[in-house]
């Protein structure tokens, strides 16, 4: 089944590289232009669960890699087994400078919080997203904290380290 899908993908899309590391897992590397059509194609093929959006910061290549994890479940609910679930990892790379990409909300509505999270943690702008407001972080980080060039040690020293102990503060005041 998953091999059939590989053949179909290779036939329909000319710029994909498909690997099957395990029986029920498939990774698809693609160009960013054809991602949207791939996602909608997969949805039509029965891969109707958008499980997660992840991101890797390839700082040496000056690129972000976005990973869309999409799964399909067998129709037969009663005899469901976990190994019958199939995952597809769609990987695409975008430029790290002024990073931006297109939203897939039109295909999978539940992508909204994932894209917000990625926007918050990596600073990738998703065009067409209805509200890219802060999701989890409360503080103002100059560089998004999950980027590789965010120096946590230095940041911690500058913020939490700079809070004086009560004793110091009392003496400093006096």
């Amino acid at each position: 089944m998953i091999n059939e899908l590989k053949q179909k993908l290779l036939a329909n899309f000319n710029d994909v590289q498909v690997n099957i590391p395990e029986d029920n897992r498939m990774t698809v590397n693609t160009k960013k232009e054809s991602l949207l059509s791939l996602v909608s194609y997969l949805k039509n093929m029965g891969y109707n669960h958008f499980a997660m959006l992840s991101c890797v910061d390839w700082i040496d290549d000056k690129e972000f890699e976005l990973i869309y994890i999409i799964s399909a479940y067998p129709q037969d609910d009663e005899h469901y087994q976990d190994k019958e679930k199939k995952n597809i990892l769609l990987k695409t790379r975008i430029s790290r400078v002024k990073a931006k990409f297109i939203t897939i909300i039109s295909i999978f509505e539940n992508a909204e919080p994932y894209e917000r999270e990625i926007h918050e943690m990596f600073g990738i702008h998703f065009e067409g997203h209805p509200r890219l407001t802060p999701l989890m972080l409360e503080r103002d980080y100059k560089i998004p904290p999950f980027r590789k060039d965010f120096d946590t040690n230095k940041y911690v020293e500058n913020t939490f380290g700079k809070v004086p102990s009560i004793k110091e503060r009392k003496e400093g005041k006096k």
Partner: protein
Amino acid sequence: MDRNQIGKWLKNPGKMANKYSFHVVYFCTGCGIIEVPPSITTRWDAERFGIIPVATPRQANLFLITGYVSTKTLAAIIRTYEQMPEPKYTVAFGSCPINGGMYYDSYNTITSLDKYIPVDGYIAGCMPRPEAIFIGVTHLWKLIDMDKADGYKRYREDYVHYRANQEQILGELDWPPLFSKENL
């Protein structure tokens, strides 16, 4: 209960009762909370020391913080601490509240808790076993006996400084100061 104890009870019943009736707010922040269920159930039975968990800070006098404290949790911790009635004691459990522990370089985990609220005792370890909770409690008893568990008094005295530290991390706080001039 020996004769010595009875004398202490007559002298200061409130203090002794505080010692032997810890009603605890378990602030389940990190992995430390997994050590709490064994400590209050059959295996270690904290209730024999009068320690029972309660649901709201209003009824508690011991505040147990079990694990790392992110900045967002810090606000909740401060609110909860301020809602507890005095006298109240704070015990931080595990290494994370002491110096950040394994989250020493995290971008949103504070490194030492006692800059923001007063901590009366630390139980070190990653994680400490339930026995360590009881050792911590016995140490806290000794501190209370010696009147050294005075975190709530320090908080009252140095409230301005604590508040300044809290605001330095959390920005402007959305609740009014606990101690204004009239109820100090």
